[in-house]
């Protein structure tokens, strides 16, 4: 069993329309690298200088990685990763 990554609609153009992909990465940094290898362009979308971009929130199951171990948050078989763009604005 691997981990499942739920791909948000705007990134599905990088995954040939796939809404879910699988990975065996052991942490978020590894996951981003693995996604980049499989789906080039993903790393730039998700991170900037090795950090997850602001306005992009990543959850391991129900937990926001910013409240866990950030990019070092460990992943294990069966985990479900959600990538959720923030809703923000103003004027």
């Amino acid at each position, binding site marked *: 069993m691997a981990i499942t990554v739920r791909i*948000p*609609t*705007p*990134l599905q*153009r990088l995954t040939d329309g796939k809404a879910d992909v699988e990975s065996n990465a052991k942490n978020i940094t590894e996951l981003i690298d693995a996604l980049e290898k499989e789906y080039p362009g993903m790393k*730039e*979308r998700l991170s900037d200088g090795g950090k997850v*971009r*602001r*306005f*992009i*929130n990543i*959850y391991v199951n*129900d937990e*926001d990685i910013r409240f866990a171990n950030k990019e070092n948050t460990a992943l294990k078989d069966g985990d479900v990763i*959600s990538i*959720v*763009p*923030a*809703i*923000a*604005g*103003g*004027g």
Partner: protein
Amino acid sequence: MLTIQQNDLQSIFEHCNAGYPNEACGILAGRDKRVEKVYLMTNAKPGPDYYEMDPEEQFRVMRDIRDKGLAMVGMFHSHPSGHAYPSSVDVEKAYWPGTEIPNYPDAIYMIVSLVDRSKPSARGFSIEEGKVQEISLSVV
């Protein structure tokens, strides 16, 4: 066109007025461009010209919407002293960072103007690939 019930619109106006002078925000759930449930959200970074939904709350609400078999048909926020039209920040934040790819394609951005707080007004917009287009609101 986005259809919304009068009482839902009223609760949005009250939420926006309660947040005054800061911006207030929320999520519109439903199906087929018809709002069936309004989620009044927390502005995690409140300011008179800024909002950012509380990320955890947003995640919970998006899951709740899915569990109910609905879709996120849109979101709303207030312009406490501005008109009901997307600002440059609204447009920028509607896109994936660094791109013009919409974060939530098909979502309608409702903006509530509190220029006259006793008579708030709302308009709907789609923000996609560099283009802002008004979507009419049908209040039933």
